[in-house]
């Protein structure tokens, strides 16, 4: 499973990076979204994989931490999801504002040939 997830992270990242380097702002924004999936999975994977044992505790009694998934990366991902959502939204709005003001959707506000 670790191999699959690593590959997934790799493919998401590669697609994201490729798009990040493209000239159209919409490509960049899709790239950022893909990258944020990749990064979220990466953060998540830093706690190692634990299937079927969410960090939800019994009410009382001894807790053996090794039986549960590490909650910290999950909490980090949650925060990261929210923040990347917000910034993606912002980027989107700047993208359309830039398109409106410059007349093009090129990230530089002008076509390459110009």
């Amino acid at each position, binding site marked *: 499973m670790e191999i699959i997830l690593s590959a997934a992270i790799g493919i998401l990242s590669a697609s994201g990076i490729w798009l990040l380097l493209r000239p159209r702002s919409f490509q960049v924004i899709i790239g950022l979204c893909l990258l944020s999936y990749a990064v979220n999975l990466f953060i998540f994977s830093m*706690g190692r994989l634990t299937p079927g044992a969410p960090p939800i505790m019994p009410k009382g009694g001894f807790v053996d931490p090794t039986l549960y998934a590490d909650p910290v990366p999950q909490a980090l991902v949650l925060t990261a999801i929210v923040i990347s959502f917000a*910034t993606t939204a912002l980027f989107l709005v700047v993208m359309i504002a830039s398109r409106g*003001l410059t007349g093009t959707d090129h*990230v530089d506000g002008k076509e390459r040939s110009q």
Partner: protein
Amino acid sequence: MISEHLIIAPILIPFVVGALMLLYDDRQRGAKFWLSLASTAAQLLIAVELVVRAKIGGDIGDAEGMSFYLLGDWPAPFGIVLVLDRLAAMMLVLTALLAIPSLVYARAGWGRQGPHYYSLFQFLLVGLNGAFLTGDLFNLFVFFEILLAASYGLLLHGSGQLRVRAGLHYIAINLAASLLFLIGVSLIYGTTGTLNMAHLANLVASMPGEDRPLLHAAIAILAVAFLVKAGSWPLNFWLPTAYMAAAAPVGAMFAIMTKVGVYAILRLSMLVFGETGGASAGFGSGILIMLGMFTVLFGLLGILASQGLGRMAAHSVLISSGTVLGITGFALAGGGQAMLSGALYYMIGSVLATGALFLLIEPMNREDGGIAAMLALTADAYGIDDADMEEEPDVGLAIPATMAVLGGCFALCVLMLAGLPPLPGFVGKIAMIQPLIAQTALPAGLAWGFVALLILSGLATLIGMARIGIQTFWANDVPLPRVLALEIAPVIAILLILGTISFKAEVMLRYTGGTAHALHDTAAYAYGVFATPRAADRPADEEAQQ
């Protein structure tokens, strides 16, 4: 009891005020301004008090004058801890010192250019102050995001093609950098199991060898994110355009934004790769020195190649960043505390001076007509059906002898940035150069190269700025611009502060010297974080005493 919570006040005050102002109607700008001013002034007062505390030592968790604050009363390294040491306190004061003039300046017109300026401004301060205070890596990320988000908003404040285009680049690059930040932080957690900086500093010496490369990679990736913010070459090409495009008071605040990146690098590298870093000690110092040098060189070329003052000011931000980065590298390589002390002193001066310069740009380039012309320039033809465009009379009085006052202020900024006497730029450069040339442990070529760059950057600043200044003040036949007292008073205030910093250089250097010493003393930091007692664990009699 109150003093115990004073550490968090620089974060909470702007937060509360920023949130509170959301409940106001957007047109109640007067009230918002005064609220903001009160908030910022309170931050300054508290920051000064915290500096005093950092100097003499606080009453809780006293470790060489450091104070600690366990958020949610959770012990380190589990909860988030705020750490107030000399460096943090100093940065807080610097932030507030820059914020007040910028705020007052904005009152003259920029504050009206779009909705919720004052809230965004306060949130920017939340981010800055939080980034300086936190002792937790992920929390640092959160505060970075706060200050970045606010800076996006402020950069775009006023809209217009130039700003939006610059904003697009600024945001795209910073988003990418934030992703790197996340990768770095999580990788650190994956290899060490902690997010607490002090804990990390403790763990790094005894790390198993096979994990060390991963930790190095983590911090290197993290450093790339910081370097983007610090404006380090080759990750800084966005910076001049963005800073130039920003509204004047925002540009002034941006002067300190790069320093947050520098701060993070300084803090983290000294903690993790300082003398106590075991096999990792000194990691990355060489590259940091090189990057610092390239950044200074880039800034130097940029200043010379710039046509407008805004771009020049932005490049002088780069010079100041590069200088401190380079010195951080030297300090990390074992260069000692003296040069770090000088760099910190220099940083204070250069931040304030670039801030003042940003505030000067707009009045200097204003051909005629004051704020009204500015409004006309930035207002878009489409969609002005909104309330924020109503005409308000200019606030405040126009100043007499405009050109002389502006010219004088500009000249002083130039003197400061070029490192000419008698302003802190000069003292700061001497304070860096003296230990650099005295230091024999460092590679001589690098040290001398750095000295040469420091001197040359001063000369380049002088040449470039003189060119612009002469053009603006001497070779211009346009009628005298109308400049409001509200716009020039902040600049004069900053210059007075600069004068004081120079005059009181000995006191300042003693403080920064202590700061440099504390930065080298990783053990005290780490000890203090872990020794801080929880409020719940404090014995009752002790509580009664407080």
